[in-house]
């Protein structure tokens, strides 16, 4: 049993968070899906609500509203976070309504979506919110019945005093409970007593989604609202010189054309203020189609940017950022990478004597891997609603980390940060892109200039060509084997434009006596940002492809080879700082080996294995591939995951299935190239995305069962799939895959 000091308060306001006209407030009254709506039990609404703490209110009829604190972008936290509250509150899940909390960090702490840290960071606070509310309800019952608190027990939504045979619903005690002071500490349930956590609960928004209700930022509408679109420079390395807006302004439905500047002079940017095009032209009009037509008529001239060196107030304090001038191309990037990667990098970690080990090796294997830039391509293009009135601003935007952009909005508008109200509608995907919310600043500046509520919409082309990409990376691995085919030294040198992808303390560091990790980076004016499992999304594929090749050279089974290294890391770890738990890592490999029936003859099916640890979670995949007329077909992926306690198992499976499919798509097709600063793809006609027929025919997800506090799920199954694809292709074709994408625009391998 865990007893914790509480750190939650009352809500300081009880404003309705129903941004989209009630669409955000949804019943959990789950119809089994075969029932028609007439048979469905419709939840009765209470006549009065009583606020128990910031996260929940209870109606006089026992219905509970839970405010879910973090924004939703498909990771299903709008279901799994309220499950944590409901578990400790001890309430019937069918009597729970979920509302999206607005941005209010005093009440709701750090409200964010990213780094697969949502559930992990909320695991205790949200259960505490439920447990403290239950405590207050019990206290209220104890006072009403004049009995000792410890004699008041609960069963789903009911309070009981056994000795006097009295019972009451939560709704009956909610009014009294709401007047009691928040307890100083609360006791949380033991894992064995969970009734909601670790049971599959349907997505609370699924009904609204399948009926096409207004849920997303893109759907937002307000009376008098104008539509805005931006025109940004056609190439990285260019900036606005002048605008001729006469023709565009004369187009039907156009109200105003304005230029905006996203950062005031001298503004010290934060780590998420990335923006390649801070000076933009905005076209504002009555309707999307009219604005789109005027956008084509706008004439602007552009000039080269000058190189800059700025101080950024980033995660790790002040950082110096260099942005070179010039128009960059994929070809010039490749030449730069070849040059820099051939020189010594910055040594990040060294164990033993790698130089001597390589000199004395019986066999040395050296391989290089690369991956291109990727665009996030969320299905919902970038958009933001803003209404600036005097020194106040109302914002509603798909956004992953509102707290990081509020200071920039405030500085840009010249208003106090506390005057900004922000709603966080459901996001139509994010994958990291919506953590860089320059578009919210843009919407706010446009609204301020045109004195009207404005919804800014990026076209798909604007979205894909605006920057914040997954960087391009390169890594070279070297392995030294002794005469008995033992791995005695490993050397990794990795870099990228503009950042290194290296994690020097991850496996196989700690498992190899002689280890050297080096990194390098090359500055660029093409902007980058976090993309589902940043850096891991490249390193896992490179590392796991390389280990497969080393295992083959050593004549060992690829799973056993990894398990032997993990045993070494567990029994006799090398170095002080190894980021992973070797036993849990081995656990997912053992589970996937068993579930995939590894080692059995699969006929014409070729199998690749891969495993990785990132975002505090372990994942291993076995991918089954066939080749049909030269075309790779993924028959099945078997996946084992250790993310601790699985809060909502079916939703977690959905995440894993999505990550696997996303990874296969990117491994085969994902690529953004540049020519003279211009992205060479700007829409889905050229940017190839994985489609129905290319997805795995079957995905089989298994979780390690344990009672460890839950960790990340959105990202960890994604990085290792790249290695599984590469290793399966090798089995099928005898060709190792070193450079992503493995297919690109081709239909067949080779």
């Amino acid at each position: 049993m865990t007893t914790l000091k509480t750190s939650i308060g009352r809500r300081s306001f009880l404003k309705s968070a129903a941004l989209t006209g009630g669409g955000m407030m949804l019943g959990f009254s789950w119809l089994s899906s075969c029932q028609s709506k007439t048979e469905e039990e419709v939840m009765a609404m209470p006549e009065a609500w009583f606020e128990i703490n910031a996260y929940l209110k209870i109606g006089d009829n026992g219905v509970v509203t839970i405010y879910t604190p973090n924004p939703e972008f498909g990771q299903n936290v709008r279901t799994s976070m309220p499950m944590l509250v409901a578990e400790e509150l001890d309430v019937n899940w069918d009597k729970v309504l979920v509302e999206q909390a607005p941005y209010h960090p005093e009440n709701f702490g750090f409200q964010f979506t990213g780094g697969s840290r949502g559930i992990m960071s909320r695991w205790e606070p949200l259960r505490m919110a439920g447990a403290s509310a239950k405590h207050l309800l019990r206290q209220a019952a104890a006072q009403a019945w004049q009995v000792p608190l410890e004699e008041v027990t609960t069963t789903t939504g009911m309070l009981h005093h056994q000795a006097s045979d009295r019972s009451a619903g939560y709704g009956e005690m909610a009014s009294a409970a709401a007047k009691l002071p928040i307890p100083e500490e609360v006791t949380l349930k033991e894992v064995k007593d969970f009734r909601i956590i670790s049971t599959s609960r349907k997505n609370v928004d699924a009904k609204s989604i399948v009926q096409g209700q207004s849920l997303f930022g893109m759907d937002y509408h307000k009376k008098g609202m104008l539509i805005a679109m931006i025109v940004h420079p056609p190439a990285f390395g260019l900036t606005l010189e002048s605008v001729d807006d006469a023709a565009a302004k004369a187009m039907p439905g156009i109200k105003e054309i304005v230029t905006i500047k996203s950062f005031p002079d001298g503004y010290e940017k934060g780590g998420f203020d990335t923006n390649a095009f801070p000076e933009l032209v905005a076209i504002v009009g009555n309707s999307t189609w009219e604005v789109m037509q005027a956008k084509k008529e706008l004439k602007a001239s552009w000039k080269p940017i000058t190189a800059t060196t700025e101080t950024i107030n980033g995660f790790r304090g002040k950082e110096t950022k260099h942005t070179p001038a010039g128009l960059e191309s994929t070809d010039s990037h490749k030449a730069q990478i070849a040059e820099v990667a051939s020189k010594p990098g910055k040594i990040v970690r060294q164990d033993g004597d790698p130089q001597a080990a390589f000199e004395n090796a019986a066999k040395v294997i050296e391989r290089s891997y690369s991956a291109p830039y990727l665009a996030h391509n969320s299905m919902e293009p970038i958009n933001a609603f803003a209404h600036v009135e005097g020194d106040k601003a109302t914002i509603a935007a798909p956004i992953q980390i509102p707290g990081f952009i509020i200071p920039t909005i405030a500085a840009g508008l010249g208003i106090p940060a506390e005057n900004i109200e922000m709603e966080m509608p459901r996001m139509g995907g994010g994958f990291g892109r919506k953590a860089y919310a320059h578009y919210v600043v843009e919407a706010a500046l446009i609204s301020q200039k045109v004195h009207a509520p404005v919804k800014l919409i990026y076209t798909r082309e604007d979205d894909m060509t605006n920057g914040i990409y997954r960087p391009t990376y390169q890594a070279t691995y070297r392995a030294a084997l002794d005469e008995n085919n033992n791995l005695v030294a490993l050397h990794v040198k990795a870099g990228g434009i503009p950042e290194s992808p290296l994690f020097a303390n991850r496996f196989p560091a700690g498992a190899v006596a002689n280890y050297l990790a080096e990194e390098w980076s090359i500055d660029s004016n093409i902007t980058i940002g976090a993309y589902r499992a940043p850096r891991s999304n490249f390193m896992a594929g490179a590392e796991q492809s390389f280990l497969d090749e080393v295992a083959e050279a050593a004549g060992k089974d690829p799973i056993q080879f990894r398990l032997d290294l993990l045993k070494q890391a567990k029994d006799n770890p090398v170095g002080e700082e190894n980021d992973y738990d070797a036993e849990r890592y081995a656990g997912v490999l053992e589970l996937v080996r068993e579930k995939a029936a590894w080692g059995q003859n699969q006929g014409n099916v070729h199998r690749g294995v891969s495993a990785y640890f990132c975002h505090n979670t372990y994942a291993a995949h076995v991918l089954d591939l066939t080749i049909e007329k030269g075309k790779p077909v993924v028959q099945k992926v078997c996946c084992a995951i250790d993310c601790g306690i699985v809060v909502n198992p079916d939703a977690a499976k959905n995440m894993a299935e999505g990550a696997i499919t996303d990874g296969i798509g990117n491994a085969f097709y994902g690529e953004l190239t540049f020519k003279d600063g211009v992205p060479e793809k700007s829409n889905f006609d050229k940017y190839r995305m994985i489609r129905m027929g290319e997805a795995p025919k079957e995905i089989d997800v298994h979780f390690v069962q344990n009672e460890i506090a839950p960790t990340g799920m959105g990202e960890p199954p994604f990085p290792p799939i790249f290695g599984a694809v590469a290793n399966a292709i090798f089995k099928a074709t005898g060709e190792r895959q070193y450079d992503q994408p493995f297919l690109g625009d081709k239909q067949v391998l080779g």
Partner: protein
Amino acid sequence: MANFNLKINGKNHQLDVDPATPVLWVLRDHLHLVGTKYGCGIAQCGACTIHLDGVAMRSCIIPVSAVRDQAITTIEGLSEQGDHPVQQAWLEHDVPQCGYCQAGQIMSAAALLSDNTKPSDEDIDMAMHGNICRCGTYTRIKAAIKTAAKVG
């Protein structure tokens, strides 16, 4: 600008818009039927899929002037109670992740099943090829279509 009389989800709507305006934007901006989504604007992602006289079409490239007397069905009108077999199957399989593409997926799936009550995997792959799901829910979408086929 020109006047159009559109039959959408069984109701008639009078509008005065630029004849070149795609049906997508008529639905979203003029009629506030926002279930039909903008994803690419060039008929490559399927987020905007509607039915024109029962046939799945990409509303982002159909000018309003081309609709004439064809009946438009959007996700909002696929069923009165949200209980079309495809919608029910989507709930049963808990398909959506972010959810943005799902209205288009459902409209494509419903059109497929109205033509082909027992689609094979290949039929599904072909009919759904034009609908991108960035979250990668394809395996669930396929399973849901098969469930809906059994019911419908």
